[in-house]
């Protein structure tokens, strides 16, 4: 019964997206080509993966501003090790470990010292960014082993590998959020922290997990990106910080905490991707693109909120 309802929902979304694409396609030459569509998803995959962790963080009323730095730093660690001839899995593991650790550090600051996530993540991000530059004297590195590049750029059955990885992340995360205790606790913490404490659930565990996981996702995004570019650039994280947050919020994750679904965050990421892509295909002058992006963000969020308000109004007793 419930399952049916959900699948209905998805059908609806898919229907809308398809409709949207047809219209866009008719407006924009080359937009509807399978190549381009897969292309969009591939470009969105980085944002989407970061958004997986970000969704959790925002749900517990936090924010993770360490993306820029951590993303670059982890990729740099991983990349340098690869060039040192480490086997790919080990190098990636190292990169992911670094990201997770930086995330855990954020968790520590938030949990033990009560430092606002906003500021600790911001600063940790700066440090990460600095280290990324430091590691290779600000130079980019490249020329990675073929299988590694394949992960970022190759395709299986015509679909980019990145997309599979992204799907994997989104699915795993949303199962974690909806089907496990931890997931419930994360929502609970976003809803009412005191209750969580009174139930004897350790907020430390939650904070550490959420920020650690966010760091993990960021690291993964960074590694995947360096695969896509066959390069690690010491500042390659720059564009993804705000995009990831925007993706979550456009996807209806409430900045007030307690609400949000990873699936919708993915949609948010795709909306951003589609929009950027379409703007480029339309050949709109870069100056106007900024204005456009801004308007879209505000409008969509405004609509979300308006929608929520309406539903609350209706749920009144009489």
């Amino acid at each position: 019964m419930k399952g049916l309802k959900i699948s209905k929902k998805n059908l609806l979304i898919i229907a809308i997206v398809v409709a949207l694409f047809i219209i866009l396609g008719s407006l924009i030459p080359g937009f509807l080509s399978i190549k381009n569509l897969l292309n969009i998803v591939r470009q969105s995959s980085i944002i989407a993966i970061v958004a997986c962790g970000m969704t959790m963080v925002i749900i517990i009323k936090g924010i993770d501003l360490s993306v820029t730095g951590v993303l670059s730093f982890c990729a740099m660690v991983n990349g340098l090790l690869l060039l040192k001839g480490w086997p790919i899995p080990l190098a990636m593991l190292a990169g992911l470990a670094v990201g997770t650790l930086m995330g855990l550090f954020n968790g520590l600051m938030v949990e033990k010292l009560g430092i606002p996530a906003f500021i600790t993540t911001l600063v940790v991000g700066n440090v990460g960014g600095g280290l990324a530059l430091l590691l290779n004297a600000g130079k980019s590195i490249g020329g990675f082993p073929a299988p590694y590049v394949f992960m970022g750029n190759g395709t299986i059955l015509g679909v980019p590998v990145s997309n599979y990885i992204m799907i994997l992340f989104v699915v795993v995360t949303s199962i974690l959020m909806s089907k496990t205790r931890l997931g419930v606790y994360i929502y609970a913490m976003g809803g009412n922290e005191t209750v969580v404490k009174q139930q004897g659930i350790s907020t430390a565990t939650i904070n550490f997990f959420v920020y650690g996981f966010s760091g993990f996702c960021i690291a993964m995004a960074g590694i995947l990106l360096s695969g896509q570019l066959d390069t690690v650039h010491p500042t390659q994280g720059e564009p993804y910080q705000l995009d990831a947050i925007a993706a979550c919020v456009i996807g209806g994750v409430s900045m007030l905490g307690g609400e949000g679904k990873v699936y919708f965050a993915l949609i948010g990421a795709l909306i951003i991707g589609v929009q950027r892509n379409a703007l480029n295909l339309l050949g709109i002058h870069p100056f106007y693109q900024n204005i456009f992006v801004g308007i879209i963000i505000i409008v969509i969020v405004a609509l979300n909120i308006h929608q929520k308000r309406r539903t609350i109004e209706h749920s009144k007793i009489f």
Partner: protein
Amino acid sequence: MKKTILEMNAITKFIFDEHGQPLRGTTVKILEDVHFDVKEAEVHVLVGENGAGKSTLMKIIGGIIPADEGEMLLDGEVITFAGPRESLAHGIGFIHQELNLCLNLDVAQNIFLGRERQKKLFIDKASMYTEAREMLLRLGFDIDPKTMVRDLSTAQQQIVEIVKVLSYDCRIIIMDEPTASLTKSEIDKLFAIIHDLRRNGISIIYISHRFEELKEIGDRITVLRDGRYIGTVDIEDFDYDKIISMMVGRKLGAMFQSSHQVQDEVVLEVKGLRISRNTEPINLYVRSGEVVGLSGLVGAGRTELGKSIFGSRTYYGGEILYMGEEIGGLHPSNLIEKGVIYLSEDRKLEGLVLDMSLKDNMTMASLKRMYPKTKIDFKREEVVAQESIDKLNIVANSVEQICNTLSGGNQQKVVVAKWLLTNPKLLILDEPTRGIDVNAKSEIYKIIDQLASQGVAILMISSELPEIIGMSDRIYVMKRGAIAAELTDKREFIQEKILSHTL
């Protein structure tokens, strides 16, 4: 003779500084040398004024805060709880006064929070829903465990809270004013539950200010005053005045007094106001020097009416006349300037800014009047605040004290002080005595009477029939968002009669 399962001796708790650190060596203490014990299968009622230390004592039992001195024995063995989880593990459940639920989760998730049913790695939602539904039904409540707690009424939320605690098989259950927001029928159900809990050998510690309840369910009554243990009496020799005197340390005169005179001038007149699209229009008026009671069940729309008048809620059509002038939709600030004020039922969310000091809160509504040139005169402010503190004898160590370190009763007095400073002409009081002790109550009743005799018009929303009956010159009864009845003849002011209109 039932055997004692929980015993507390010489419990002492010092007051906190603003960072929650205990201030030892000060004479003022929250609890001092308190004794308390619970026997098997009894309902032990704990009474006392606000700030008497009831909640603190319970928090110690519940493992939420530790005692600074003294010992606690469970089954004769000394024990300390590191946290609420531990006390729960020892079979002590705590139903809190303010709701402890996650509004963004559904009923079942709230009930099972922290001990979800697992199927391998994943939570087993299906069985949780069925179990939750059973629990609710067993206790006679038909609430869908799938509904988000946010969408429940306050009363329903309170019930979920109770069910949640009951679902742990506890030996001792602490109920801190569980009936505060329940309707009559729900209260009856709760009492039924309490009775068969006792039958099953479970003990209940029950905190309440509603004496009519105590007789119904209590076995023993323990009285605290100013953080000290005063005494324990069996329900058999329960005597209203005796308990009162134990609580307040002196015999109390008549709770309600009416020295005020109703005048002819109509201050507030509401014509055809609908509080929502599909409710009947409301008509009512309040005259100068008149106390009008507004009775009705929780959720009958009394608060909505109050807020509609006070420009804090959208209503649907109708006019609101204050001294013959339309004030509908005005901003609270303009209304306050005109002398219209609304004292919210929700002290913590709408009444006070808990993180700010007494004086800041007291002067908040009068800033414009006190400092027309916007420059704050701190000296004057202090004087004014101190006056209010003395006048309403608020228990606080300074005007700088942060409000969330005050007891509920004192917080309520701060709110009252705030409104008195605006020298109002029309007072809308929403549950002015909710969750505050007899002494504070009678003081607030005095103030209401004084204001009325100064010609202030008062509309008093209350769920406590005694106070409605005791205070009002006229009574409106609300039902499903509309006025169900108007009682003008004091001889009609009888609990049963009013209830009959509400149901």
